[in-house]
């Protein structure tokens, strides 16, 4: 890794392993996953339910419920500090300060009996030595920054008085109040209507670029990825199966799972897609993590699978420059396309 790149890197996750101990056995929710995020960069993590994308995010902020979960290996380096080595107090000083998170459902992440302004003040005063008056002023400024109309009045209101889009804006204001180095957004627009989603995504990207925050965007929606991210990680059954720049991924996806995901999305309208045809489907379903097949976890659903896929897990290879895929047949696919 070059000097310039390391200097810019905000977060570096190496060989992260998070496991859950359950009645039906141990399962590896995140299995040997590595990635990094640079300043002002958006990294999207894509995958379906249970692929480990949310647990990866929770592992970064060390909020995996223990028990049943535990981080058993790897490192999470934020601005040069390995977060996995910090004690609880030091970790609390990082959360909401250097790393913030935005969740899917803003109503459940806001305190319903506390005014919006007070909730932001709480976050600010936890990490900065400022008077409550100064913190309130910062809170109002943050609400203005996320383009909430009449921020002075809105700061006095309770979450139920705000619409879904406004609540998510308030969450963003709170998350960015301490100017974190890294923002993790876990399905931030999934609960919102499509016109509001467009507004919120535009806002997150605009603020992130202005403030130089690194952004991890977790989503299942490839449309959202294409519109916002610079780099993409595709996860399947706890493992990273593909990583590429957004352009390269959409131009030549190199893992059959990524290809399947793209083909199974209904064609986007308005571009003259006239298909009345059936959608391409990925047969079967995501395997249970407690009972993974030997070899590649996607092999049972994969049209291209050969004997080797069912026996040996493929390494994550750099198939094209800056484009990695964990598939025995990725090379063939890269040549064919």
């Amino acid at each position, binding site marked *: 890794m070059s000097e310039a790149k390391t200097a810019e890197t905000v977060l570096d996750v190496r060989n992260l392993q998070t496991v859950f101990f359950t009645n039906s056995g141990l399962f590896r929710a995140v299995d040997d996953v590595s990635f990094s995020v640079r300043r002002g960069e958006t990294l999207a993590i894509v995958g*379906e*339910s249970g692929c480990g994308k949310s647990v990866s995010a929770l592992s970064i902020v060390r909020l995996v419920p223990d028990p049943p979960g535990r981080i058993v290996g790897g490192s999470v380096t934020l601005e040069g500090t390995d977060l996995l080595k910090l004690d609880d107090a030091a970790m609390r000083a990082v959360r909401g300060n250097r790393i913030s998170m935005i969740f899917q459902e803003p109503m459940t992440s806001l305190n319903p009996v506390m005014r919006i302004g007070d909730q932001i003040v709480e976050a600010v005063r936890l990490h900065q030595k400022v008077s409550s008056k100064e913190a309130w002023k910062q809170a109002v400024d943050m609400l203005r920054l996320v383009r909430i109309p009449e921020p002075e009045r809105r700061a006095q209101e309770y979450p139920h008085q705000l*619409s*879904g*889009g*406004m609540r998510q804006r308030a969450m963003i204001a709170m998350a960015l109040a301490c100017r974190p180095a890294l923002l993790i957004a876990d399905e931030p627009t999934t609960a919102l*209507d*499509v*016109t*509001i*989603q*467009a*507004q919120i*995504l*535009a806002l997150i990207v605009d603020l992130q670029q202005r403030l130089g925050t690194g952004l991890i965007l977790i989503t*299942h*929606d*490839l*449309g*959202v*990825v*294409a*519109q916002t991210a610079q780099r993409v990680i595709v996860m399947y059954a706890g493992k990273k199966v593909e990583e590429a720049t*957004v*352009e390269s991924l*959409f131009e030549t996806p190199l893992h059959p799972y990524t290809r*399947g*995901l*793209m083909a*199974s*999305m*209904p*064609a*986007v*309208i*308005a*571009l*003259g*897609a*006239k*298909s009345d045809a*059936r*959608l*391409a*489907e*990925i*047969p079967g*379903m*995501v395997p249970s993590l407690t009972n993974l097949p030997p070899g590649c976890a996607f092999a049972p659903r994969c049209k291209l699978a050969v004997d080797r896929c069912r026996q040996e897990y493929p390494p994550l290879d750099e198939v094209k420059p800056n484009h990695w895929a964990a598939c025995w047949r990725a090379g063939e696919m890269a040549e064919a396309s």
Partner: protein
Amino acid sequence: MTEHRPLLEVTDLVKHYAVRGGVLRRQVGTVHAVDGVSFSLGAGETLGLVGESGCGKSTVARTVLRLVEPTSGAIKLDGEDIAPLSKTALRPYRRSMQIVFQDPFASLNPRMTAGDIVGEPLSVHGIATGAKKQERVAELFQQVGLRPDQMKNFPHQFSGGQRQRICIARALSLGPRLIVCDEPVSALDVSIQAQVINLLIDLQRKQNFSYLFIAHDLAVVAHISHRVAVMYLGRIVEIADKHELFANPRHPYTQALLASVPIADPKARRIAPLIDGDVPSPINPPPGCAFHTRCRYAMDRCKTERPALQAAGTAHQVACWLNDGTGQAASYSTFVPA
């Protein structure tokens, strides 16, 4: 569209809810959930109903099935108005109308086996019992891509996609002519979504029933529907043949809605969202055209007079005052990759 009589004809459907407040629980307002909706649906046809939360699309679906009582309006099924019928008189019609809900976790009784769930409508309507019922249920299981040996399993033993298949089998059990699908795939993962959509399309081709298909995901609706109606605050603002609607959207709201869908192509990035603000409250919807508060083309007339749906091209109706009531021609720059 259809020369012959439509299967379902809805005229001026209205559903208002009273808002009560104060000590005496007096009516202090009215929620205009559905405010004069008319459409028809042919046999074997799929009409997609799209719109954002609170636009009344689900209320339309439930009112059509009389799961919610309409305030006024006519709902004709095969020419017979079912809106004024009593519960008993309605019963024979219920057989021909079924629904599939969004959440396959909440809509299945966790204490019944999958086989009993699918067979229950057969007993309720006295169609089949005993071995004959079991046989019919097994057949339904195969039709929706489940194995008959799964009949003895309970809902929790199935995945989300499989549960939605059980709901579909249950809806099919009475041989309905109309199936209302209320967000049937929104709770499912993308790869499973495709399986369920394909199943719905295949079943329709074989059995020729009609779908009233409600979803907020425009891509899904575009895929499955023949015609699409766009709703905003309790009214249909535009209705057209699918290809026509997506190629030439004429209502500014439809255009904004289409332009908000994130396109899965990094080369087609769009910068600015087309509309600001939130949907106004249906308790006091704006006068005139309900969309005028967010519309970039709004004129004085839009603020006072409500536009009615009128023809704008073949098989295309729009409720907008622009250009003599034909709406705004789409500016293609907003849709085509830059």
